[in-house]
């Protein structure tokens, strides 16, 4: 599903954010990526969604070589990926429903399709009773769930979560992880970037540890090793 071959990413001033990353993630996997701050985890995510060009190597997503993807093809790629972040990136002046619908509107989704899919994904994330609230009227966990609902509207094959629990207390964080596991059970490949030792250890799934832009460990049933 995701393949990295010898990927190097340099930032200006000689920062080697990714240093010869080799990675192979299979369809349906649930992979945690851990590592200390500034080691290149977010950069890894950004290269996968075409936000950063790499300087060496090759990246394949679902068999598609996106190494030198053209700007006009990036939207096509992004519709196959769901992405969520630590800050939920919801629009404050739109209700949760409108926020999720927005993602479909801007991609040309018909009103009929929007009416069908938005309540469906809202139900998956357990927000069906709060769809008409504004982001500031719900908890952080619920905001993140709305963001996940939005990431699901295009039925992505891969869900990328960059520290989705970073702003949440452990109760809400656990709920989000439960949700991600449920989505993974439906067949979506989930990549979870996290700092949370407790979560990683409890998951008992594949863990990739990055340090200084390099993969220093990749365990099928991993523990937080740092």
């Amino acid at each position, binding site marked *: 599903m995701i393949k990295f071959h010898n990927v190097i990413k340099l930032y200006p001033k000689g920062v080697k954010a990714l240093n010869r990353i080799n990675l192979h993630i299979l369809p349906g996997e649930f992979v945690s990526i851990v590592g200390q701050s500034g080691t290149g985890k977010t950069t890894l995510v950004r290269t996968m*969604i075409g936000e950063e060009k790499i300087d060496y190597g090759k990246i394949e997503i679902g068999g598609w070589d996106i190494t030198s993807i053209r*700007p006009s093809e*990036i*939207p*096509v790629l*992004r519709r196959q990926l769901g*992405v969520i972040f630590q800050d939920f990136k919801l629009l404050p002046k739109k209700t949760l429903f409108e926020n999720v619908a*927005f993602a479909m509107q801007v991609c*040309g989704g018909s009103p009929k399709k929007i009416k069908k899919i938005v309540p469906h994904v809202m139900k998956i994330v357990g927000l069906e009773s709060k769809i008409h609230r504004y982001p500031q009227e719900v908890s952080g966990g619920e905001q993140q769930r709305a963001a996940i609902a939005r990431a699901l509207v295009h039925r992505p094959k891969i869900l990328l979560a960059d520290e989705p629990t970073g702003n949440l207390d452990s109760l809400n964080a656990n709920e989000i992880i439960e949700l991600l596991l449920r989505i993974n059970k439906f067949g979506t490949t989930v990549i979870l970037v996290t700092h949370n030792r407790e979560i990683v250890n409890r998951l008992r799934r594949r863990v990739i540890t990055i340090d200084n832009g390099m993969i220093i460990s990749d365990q099928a049933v991993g523990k937080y090793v740092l």
Partner: protein
Amino acid sequence: MFISFYRVLKFSFQDVYRNIWLSLVTVIILILALFTVNMLLIVKVIGDTAVDAIKEKIDINLFLNNDSEENEILALKAQIGGFSEVREVTYVSKSEALEKFKENHKDNPEILEALRELGKNPLTPTLVIKPNNLDEFDMLINRINSIDSDMIESRNFTNYKVLLDKINVITKKVTDAGLFLSSIFVFISILVVFNSIRISIYTHKREIAIMKLVGASNWFIQLPFLISGWFYTLIGVGFVMIVFYPFLTLLQPYLEAFFVGYNIDLVSYFYTNAFTIFGAEFMVAGFINMLASLLAVRKYSKV
């Protein structure tokens, strides 16, 4: 596709509406720019009308002796008519001259009375010469001056050339000043449009980031801002159109008073040419604004 275009339009309106003050300033600057451009046009129309009117009036009158023979006059007419500088020679006989005089002064009973008291036709036969080309006016005068005929009683040459030159100089000066003013305004409008699009992109930073994240196509993200550029133009040109006709109507009496006897009608000029004038202004201004917007979009909403 259709629904996407509808949404693009909607986003564009939202963008204009949300930064309403900025949009207002943008439109006002555009209106100023368009107004100066149209003022320039007015000056040009007035100048051209004045020049044309005077050119039409330019002729040389050769007043002939009262007792000149008809066939001699016709021979002289033929001679002058043969000059390459001459477009047309008209022979106005004594009686025709009288008719014309009466016609010209039909509203002035005192003159007509004086004429009647004279008892006989005091007017002389005349040859009216119209020049071909104003540039050859001096040459023509020289040639006519060199005709040695005792039929010619007097030669009346008003020097229209000086007058025309004066008008041309004034028109040119006003046009230059207008051109300078217009280019300043056009330049300012480009900056202002660029800046408002930049600011609206900035205000929509979050939306744009999310749109990109969820896979909205680039045209969908950028088109609303380009349309905003056209939208400003539409409002600006529309406003100028609405305001311009009353303005012209106000101006008209002054022009008529100034150009007595000349046919100058700016209102109808701007009516008959409205489509060309405002259409062209809309296209050109819209295109310039779109380029300014495109520049802003390219610069500030990178993928």
